[in-house]
């Protein structure tokens, strides 16, 4: 394990250079640059707000929009990390066949690229809330959510790594994951609030949803300014630790075999 981390540190320049390249590629491909890639979450939020804010929200479209956009940013990060993770080893196959460097470099390439991308969306939300409340102090809330973001990053790395290794053995992993993501999206309070389910005695659906606990570490503090309770940190931390543990186990188990199946 220590050996693995040491090797990872040795190749940090390689990793960071590729992450930088990926981001540049992503934003250069279109005239609108960063704006274009934010278009999807923003467009979705607008649609949701227009259609659902009176139905599922508390009647205040701005609060609803901010809540949806935050949720979409975090959710999109987790989903896209895992989905892109499926292609991760195939995309880096030429490097893998040339140099014996830790596989984590490639999964981190996927995750870090997505993370920076999602941070931009989160920054947009924060600025939006600050403008709406005409309160610059809202911007300080970004510090409340830092521990939560770290946990989410860890969870995303875990999911990406597991997806990457699984795809080498089962090539339909990405397809199955897309189906699972679609289901999870509707099971997670992103476009509706938790209260809606609680009223129907369906709160347990949310309690057993690991995504919800990760989401709540960032969304509520960002929107309301309340610091998450210790219990929430424990729940979110447990989810992240479980995913990282599973991923580390997968790496240890398969890192010496996966090359024969690429």
């Amino acid at each position, binding site marked *: 394990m220590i050996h693995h981390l040491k090797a990872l540190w040795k190749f940090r320049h390689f990793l960071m250079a590729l992450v930088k390249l990926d981001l540049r590629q992503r934003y250069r491909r279109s005239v609108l640059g960063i704006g274009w890639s934010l278009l999807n979450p923003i467009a979705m939020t607008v649609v949701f707000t227009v259609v659902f804010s009176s139905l599922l929200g508390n009647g205040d479209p701005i609060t609803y929009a901010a809540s949806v956009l935050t949720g979409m940013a975090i959710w999109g990060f987790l989903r896209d990390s895992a989905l892109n993770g499926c292609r991760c080893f195939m995309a880096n196959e030429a490097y893998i066949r040339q*140099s014996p460097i830790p596989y984590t470099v490639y999964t981190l390439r996927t995750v870090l690229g997505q993370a920076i991308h999602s941070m931009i969306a989160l920054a947009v939300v924060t600025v939006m809330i600050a403008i709406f409340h005409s309160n610059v102090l809202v911007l300080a809330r970004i510090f409340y959510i830092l521990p939560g973001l770290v946990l989410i990053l860890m969870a995303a790395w875990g999911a990406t790594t597991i997806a990457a290794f699984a795809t080498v053995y089962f090539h339909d992993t990405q397809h199955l994951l897309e189906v699972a993501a679609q289901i999870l999206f509707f099971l997670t309070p992103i476009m509706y609030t938790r209260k809606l389910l609680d009223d129907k005695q369906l709160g347990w659906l949310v309690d057993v949803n690991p995504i919800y606990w990760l989401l709540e570490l960032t969304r509520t503090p960002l929107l309301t300014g309340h610091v998450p309770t210790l219990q929430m940190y424990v729940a979110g931390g447990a989810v992240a630790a479980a995913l990282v543990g599973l991923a580390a186990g997968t790496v240890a188990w398969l890192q*010496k075999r996966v*090359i*024969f199946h690429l």
Partner: protein
Amino acid sequence: MAKIDVQDASIVFNVRQNRQVSLKEYIVKGLFRRSINPEVTIHALSNINLNAKDGDRVGIIGHNGAGKTTLLKMLAGIYPPTEGTCCVEGKICSLFDITLGFEQDATGWENIAYRSYLQGVSPSVLREKIKSIGEFSELGEFLTLPVRNYSAGMRMRLAFSIATAAEPEVLLIDEVLAAGDMAFQVKARTRMRELMSAARLMVLVSHDLNTIREVCNRALWLKRGKVVREGPSAEVVQAYMDDVAVRTKARQSRQSGELENAAA
């Protein structure tokens, strides 16, 4: 000090006939116990022993598919041995598959940086070296263009320039590389010779038996993943050539025998 210590190393792995399975198929197969996509076991290397130390120049010969490249990749650490141990001490530089894995949308300069980082070079060292790598490739202004637009020869030049810029202790080479046009080939050969003499330890895979005899002091003859013979390069090369001659003769006489039978 550079050292190679391979003990009783084997590489055996299973592949599916139809490349990969889907999870769906895996579950269905589990339910009905009927395989439409059987596993095939591949013995890429069997019980290889190899010891080399500073100053050794080891040549590896054998037919295509004998496991030469697999052995080289095992020494490079890319294929882990499934049995036995493979221990290589010293900074490794491997020259195989070097034209693969360029970032297509990045420029030549950027790719020099990526490749160098992949070899473990730090940014400060790279700053000193990057100019001479670019100059050696003679690609000039093309280096500011994306690699996507390069011809095969240009890629080869760039890859060769980056790969040979390292100062390795253990040098692993698959075939002598024919890089670019005539003028560049002369340059490349000089660079190769410099590299070979600078490296403490070298393992060379080649079909050019004369090169093996000249450059290497030891040789290893592989056949279907097994070592047939190991020893001083002249002896092993001679034995290999004799074997090839005997087989060719046998094939010829068999063919002519068949011809005579057909005529009669």
